[in-house]
């Protein structure tokens, strides 16, 4: 059993934001309850149609994507997506993105009161923020101000995960300031800021970026021993997951791997079980 931000998770493997559809598409391949949690795509206050096509391109061992945070907006999410997710027996983590502190606060207020929300993940690391109009977190204090706004407006008992950029120069300071501002754990990290072949701003994810994410996770865990860190970036196997856990992460998230193999998360959960037997209490 994994303990994250006061929550008990069935496994140390979660679905990363934006890579599990509405949950139903993934559930076609196996129960979500087997996983440690499901992070929704980033939800915004108002509906967002997403960016122009092509939105995703293949690069060697990676994907570059500029989906543009397509989502139905908060109200339809609460009405149609959340209730179904809440019944799946998994931890539902709602990722949020806003264009202003006020929007983040509003999202926190509404979601904090909604049954079925296990935690809020604050997206502070959109790789194409300048294009999409999402609040552009460039300095650690930007991140901290968002987390503070969210934290203030969230009922007690709903933990906050702060999802940071895997920017090795600032990730430790960013983690420290968001934890100070009230985050219960940090997620390190998001897709790397990158370009589509045609030059548009995009995010790079997949196995290509694993060594960068691992470096950032290792530095945060080493510098902030008390911090709870969730690692993400390029994980496709139980061995990958183990390197993040070995570096000090309490759990990992899987994104691109699911786009390539919708059973990847369940497979890794099973493989982790096989080799590291749970300690038995007696």
């Amino acid at each position, binding site marked *: 059993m994994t303990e994250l931000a006061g929550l008990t998770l069935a496994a140390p493997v979660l679905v990363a934001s*934006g*890579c*599990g*559809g509405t949950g139903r*598409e*993934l559930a*076609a*391949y196996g129960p979500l309850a087997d996983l440690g949690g499901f992070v929704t*795509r980033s939800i915004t206050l108002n509906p967002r*149609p*997403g960016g*122009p*096509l*092509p*939105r*995703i391109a*293949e690069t*060697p*061992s*990676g*994907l570059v*994507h500029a*989906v543009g945070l*397509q989502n139905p907006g908060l109200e339809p999410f609460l009405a149609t997506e959340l209730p179904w997710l809440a019944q799946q027996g998994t931890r539902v983590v709602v990722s949020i993105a806003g264009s202003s502190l006020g929007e983040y606060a509003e999202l926190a207020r509404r979601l904090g009161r909604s049954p079925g929300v296990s935690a809020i993940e604050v997206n502070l690391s959109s790789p194409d923020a300048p294009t999409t109009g999402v609040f552009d977190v460039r300095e650690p204090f930007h991140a901290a101000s968002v987390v503070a706004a969210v934290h203030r407006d969230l009922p007690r008992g709903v933990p906050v995960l702060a999802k940071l950029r895997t920017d090795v120069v600032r990730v430790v300071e960013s983690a420290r300031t968001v934890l100070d501002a009230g985050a219960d754990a940090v997620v390190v990290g998001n897709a790397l800021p990158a370009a589509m072949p045609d030059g548009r701003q995009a995010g790079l994810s*997949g*196995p290509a970026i694993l060594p960068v994410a691992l470096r950032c996770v290792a530095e945060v865990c080493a510098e902030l021993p008390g911090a709870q860190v969730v690692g993400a970036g390029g994980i496709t196997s139980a061995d990958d997951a183990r390197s993040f856990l070995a570096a000090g992460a309490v759990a990992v998230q899987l994104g*691109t791997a*699911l*786009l*390539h*193999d*919708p*059973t990847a998360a369940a497979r890794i959960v099973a493989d982790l079980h096989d080799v590291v037997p749970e300690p038995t209490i007696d």
Partner: protein
Amino acid sequence: MTQTPRRGPVHVTGELLATKKVGAYHHLTLVAPGVADGFRPGNFVAISVGESRLARRSFWIHRVKPVGGYGAALELVVEATGPGATWLTRLAPGARLEVTGPLGRPFALPKEPVSCLLVGDGYAAAPLFPLAERLRERDCPVTLLVAGSDEAHLLSALEARRSARAVTVVTADGSVGRKGTVADAVDEVLARAGAEVVYAAGPVPTLHAVAAAAEAHGAWSQTALERPLTCATGLCQGCVVPVVGEDGVSRTVRACHDGPVLRGDRVRWADLGADLGQVR
């Protein structure tokens, strides 16, 4: 139109049994346990093509056939256009493949025995052959319009003739059948067949022409779209298609999950420009 609920898709390690070159295409036979079970015409499979290519490649299920000892095998028709598909056509029998399927919303079948026109362009005629069989089982008279750039890019309509009342062949270079494109021929064939439902699979311009012709003749159209699919399973939102809903409101649907078969009168064809996608 009815559509019986189908079993869900599975993700399995399959095995390539055989590859046969037919004209410009490679017919691949593979076993992928569980994929054939829920198959309906218009479904497709997604296949991983090498370790460093993370986007799946999708292929119409052309045929499901029993294979001794293996249960059912799938037949796919692959054109080696780019590196991904080429990789696939070069595999030796026995190669293991990650296969997901059956995927997507299949062709909806008519409740009544109405006259149907099936239009297939290039390898995309592949899903129409099993469709023709199902329609014949429902006593729907079937007319086929098969197109290709030349003889090598024409999917053999031989077997389909069994299920079809009439078959028209057009090639862009006139090497077989009439010279011309689907757009040139569809109006006349549609009128002659008196079809009430038109099914089509092929490049976007072909589908657009078919949808327009159907609308002009007051027929239903079911168009099977090919868009660049990254996950092919509805997870990534990379494959959106602009449509007009039943309510008249414009929105987007996912080609892989809400399609690939969409009502021709709902797709906003004009907004599916070249800039909206790379596949054909």
